[in-house]
């Protein structure tokens, strides 16, 4: 694996040879870590902002709330992190969920519908019940997807594509085709500020930590990867593949519903057409950027979080630089393709002249010479 020794030359003119080699080796090892490149991109994107907004990294307190560019990015990214985490597990089972955006809309509209029809909109119980209904709607959507994919054996793309399009119809049905505006201080609290921190960050962090604990401290993560690698082999080995897949889709629906609650509570309104629009793109992009293979069998929750942060920062940066927002879609669609190409063994052998199984060359070595 470690081919460092053969290629180093001339880098150690300044320092002593041994320590230079060692530093380089460490750099190489860091660079070969799967989170290295997303992290580099993230830091790079943040640095791009520094000339135009010198106080980009500063975080202050205003009216008892934290504020700053980074906090804004986190608030904006929290729902996408939630969706991304759910999607990561589905993709790990070698599935896909294209309906996350629609589920976001369904859960948000269902919750807002409940609040609007409650006798006392401001009551805490109303908000809690609304949140419960939203989450239940998400779980139901996830179970629906899971039923068709895991039990009936329908291709994940088609089963979830159906909900992606029909789900928007369901959301419009709940909202009667109109944007529901709620006037509830308690519902607004769900996506508002909990003490000095915005709730979205706390909720997303809690979900991420719990998911990592559940998948990596128990055998669940390994079982999911086994199912994603080869569902039939996993089943023969005694893994309840159907149940694992089902769980992944239900969890994904739950995460999307949580994102829907955050979004609608943030704006105190639910728009069946636009809430969660393109979230399936953002989710898949975050997952792919984070190093999870779309073929399944491997997943990295931490990578997905980093991927979502990269997207959030990218959107924020493009906005700050005055790039028209409509070009974002083109850009992000392009990134998906590029990342998939880099991950494709054939592309690497044919175009990049790499033998399969070898990692990408690390461009860090030549630059240290200059």
């Amino acid at each position, binding site marked *: 694996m470690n081919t460092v020794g053969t290629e180093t030359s001339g880098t150690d003119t300044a320092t002593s040879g041994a320590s230079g080699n060692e530093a380089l080796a460490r750099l190489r090892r860091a660079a070969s870590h799967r989170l290295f490149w997303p992290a580099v991109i993230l830091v790079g994107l943040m640095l791009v902002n520094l000339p135009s907004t010198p106080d980009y990294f500063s975080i202050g307190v205003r009216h008892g709330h934290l504020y700053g560019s980074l906090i804004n990015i986190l608030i904006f990214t929290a729902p996408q992190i939630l969706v991304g985490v759910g999607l990561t597990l589905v993709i790990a089972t070698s599935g896909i969920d294209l309906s996350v955006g629609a589920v976001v809309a369904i859960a948000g509209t269902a919750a807002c519908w409940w609040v609007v029809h409650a006798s006392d909109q401001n009551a805490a119980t109303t908000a809690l019940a609304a949140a419960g209904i939203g989450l239940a709607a998400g779980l139901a959507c996830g179970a629906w997807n899971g039923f068709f994919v895991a039990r009936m054996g*329908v291709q994940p*793309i088609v089963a979830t594509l*159906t909900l992606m399009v029909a789900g928007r119809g369901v959301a419009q*049905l709940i909202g009667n085709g109109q944007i529901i505006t709620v006037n509830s201080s308690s519902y607004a609290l769900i996506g508002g500020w909990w003490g000095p921190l915005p709730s979205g960050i706390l909720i997303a962090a809690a979900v991420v930590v719990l998911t990592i604990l559940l998948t990596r401290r128990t055998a669940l993560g390994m079982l999911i990867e086994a199912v994603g690698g080869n569902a039939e082999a996993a089943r023969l080995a005694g893994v309840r593949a159907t149940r694992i897949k089902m769980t992944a889709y239900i969890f994904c629906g739950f995460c999307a519903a949580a994102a829907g609650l955050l979004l609608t509570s943030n704006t105190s309104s639910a728009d069946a057409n636009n809430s969660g629009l393109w979230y399936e793109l953002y989710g898949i992009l975050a997952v792919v950027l984070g190093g999870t293979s779309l*073929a399944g069998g491997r997943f990295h929750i931490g990578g997905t979080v980093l991927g979502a942060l990269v997207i959030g920062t990218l959107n924020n940066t493009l906005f700050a630089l005055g790039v028209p927002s409509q*070009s974002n879609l*083109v850009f*992000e669609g392009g990134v998906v393709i590029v990342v998939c190409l880099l991950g494709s063994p054939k592309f690497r052998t044919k175009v990049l002249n790499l033998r399969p199984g070898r990692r990408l060359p690390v461009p860090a070595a030549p630059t240290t010479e200059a």
Partner: protein
Amino acid sequence: MTAPVLDTSETPPKRAADRPKRFAALLGSKRLPVYVTAALFVAMYIGGYSRYQNLNFGTGQVVANLFVDNCYLLVAAVGATFVILSGGIDLSIGSMIGFTTMLTAFLVQKEHWPVLLVAPLALAIGAAGGALMGYVIHEFEIQPFIVTLAGLFLFRGLCEMVNKESIQITDHTVTRLALFHIQLPGDTFLSLGAVLSLVVLAAAVYVLHHTRFGRRVYALGGNEHSALLMGVPVGRTKIAVYTVSGFCSAFAGLLFTLYIQSGDPLHALGLELDAIAAVVIGGTLLTGGSGYVLGTLLGVLVLGLIKTLISFEGTLSSWWTKIATGALLLAFILLQRVMAAKRR
């Protein structure tokens, strides 16, 4: 007009239902979904006729309008049939249609290009986009859905880059083409779009069922590895299939422009589902290798009839169309699963 011809063949399933043996044989038949769809169409038509008789549901124009109002869907679904028969999927159909309407509207209305130049250009862009996606899918072995999903986002994004707002087309030639009608006996008429879509359908029937390329598409969808061993040029066929789909999407986009006489970044949002639904309802296996283009026509007619019924009902809102389409698609996918299980 094909539907009444086909519905004569849908009587056997009903009679066979009492006889378990024939029923089992029928479940294994490739044509079963087509029969079911034909029966569904007839049942829906009779239902609509009895309910909205006094609203002129029985006139020939209602049937002719199925072709007029869904010409773009028919063309898009024909393209999707090629892809699905080959065992792939194309999610970029709706975006490609939206992009074509936007580009056409922009070039004709804002830049005053002649329509005769814009139309081939749009078709070429569609075909090139499809070919590019096919190339990436084949050459680098990336799953079709992720490549075409990226295509979906790319073309939708490009729509908004062409122009952010919708553009109304008032160009003389376009308006005249849109108003062009062909009179049929019985006081009915077909629009230019409907006629063109039927021409595309006829061409697709010929290509799929009577040419070497058509056989290769079926072979590819049946089993890619066997096709390769048989000497089918897998790569070329795959790229060609996505090129056909891109071309059909762009063609559908032109028909859509003609139908609606405007370009809008949000035109045909989610139309890929309608196209895929039409193909599946028409009896083509989602796993590829089995199906008929004429079945796709039947699928489009069923979806069109749903829309017609909902508009005749009046009180039902348009989102019911989306829900009904999704439900119908799922029902037919389940039928396919049951059939596949029976055949084994």
